[in-house]
């Protein structure tokens, strides 16, 4: 049976570098998927994944083994996502999640694409890519990473209510874009 994240994290904090490798191999693809949902360029995604594990490593003494590992890792990742967005929107380091959403809205709302691609996967991907980043990240964490709205709110430093609103808008737009499409 696979070791739990917490067991691996405990071993890693205790100095076992093979446990770090196991955590990296386990979470690197998932983090790449999360960052790729927010940023389209491959290099930024790779850099953010690296930065997440580097920050994890430098803060490993502060890990509390009695608490779950995954929220801790994702909170670090979401902090780096916010740093990158602040840089892109030229916002000060103190700007929080709500300020990022506001800056995104000022850039203009993207249009959800009604793709006529033959494959369902392509149509779903096109519909998600057409959402604003602030909604894509919530849907990625909720639907694909199986995190609750409460957990996502804590990771983003936002209120659960605002996360629900973003999810509601994102899922609503996807429902319209994929209306009548048969799930295989």
């Amino acid at each position, binding site marked *: 049976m696979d070791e739990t994240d917490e067991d691996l994290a405990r071993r890693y904090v205790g100095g076992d570098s093979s446990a770090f490798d196991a955590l*990296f191999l386990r979470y690197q693809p998932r983090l790449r998927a999360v960052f790729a949902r927010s940023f389209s360029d491959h290099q930024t995604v790779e850099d953010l994944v*690296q930065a997440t594990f580097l920050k994890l490593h430098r803060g490993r003494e502060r890990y509390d083994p009695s608490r779950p590992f995954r929220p801790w890792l994702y*909170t670090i990742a979401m902090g780096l996502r916010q740093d990158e967005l602040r840089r892109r929107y030229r916002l000060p380091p103190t700007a929080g999640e709500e300020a990022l959403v506001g800056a995104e809205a000022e850039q203009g709302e993207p249009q959800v694409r009604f793709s006529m691609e033959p494959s369902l996967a392509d149509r779903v991907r096109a519909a998600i890519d057409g959402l604003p980043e602030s909604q894509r990240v919530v849907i990625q964490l909720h639907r694909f990473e199986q995190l609750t709205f409460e957990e996502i709110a804590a990771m983003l430093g936002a209120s659960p209510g605002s996360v629900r609103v973003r999810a509601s808008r994102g*899922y*609503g737009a996807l429902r319209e874009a994929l209306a009548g499409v048969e799930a295989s």
Partner: protein
Amino acid sequence: MTREEQILREMAEVLGDPDEARVLHAQLSVLEDEPAPAPATDALARLRRQMVVPGWLMPALVVLVLGSATAGPLGREGLAAAEHVLWIGMVVVSLGLSALAVRTPKTVLVGALAAALLPALTPPMPGPMDLVHCARFELMTAMLPLGFAAFASWRSQAVSGWHLAAFAACGASAGNAALAVLCSGHPTHAGLVVAHASGVWLAALLGAAVAAPRWLRARGDARADA
């Protein structure tokens, strides 16, 4: 209730219709089985290399460069040789560059390239204008590392305040070296060296000032996360 059921229930809550939530949940599941894009093959090796660099290395490097850039010239020439006008000019330029490098790396990059190219295009001039010629050599060599930092920042690489300070200090030291080689016979050489050394200190202090609030905030966040 399993986690998947909980997610489905939350989807139904925000969509207001459990049946539509189930349909959308099923539609989105097509992306679950997709293989993740291939990672960089050396991702773990690169990370391991970065992990062995301790956090104190960059500040230590800055201090080392500072020490070597200032101890010699100051010991040789003495503070009395400083030319106040040049020192004030260095303060203004350093302040402007530090602010620009953080906010508008493209501008710094263009400035660095211009500073590097202009001295090559103009010949040395006799008399007092020769001082300007020497200062241009300094500027050319000092700007190149900072220009590289600005380029890295522009290309979405993270450039921290400490990195900027190190780049600025390296640039200033390189400028110092260029001055010593190319204008060693000029009577105001001592003043330029001291002015430049002051610029090194100022660049490092500004880098630290930029880095410190982020470092303190990151420390606070990490404590909160834990």
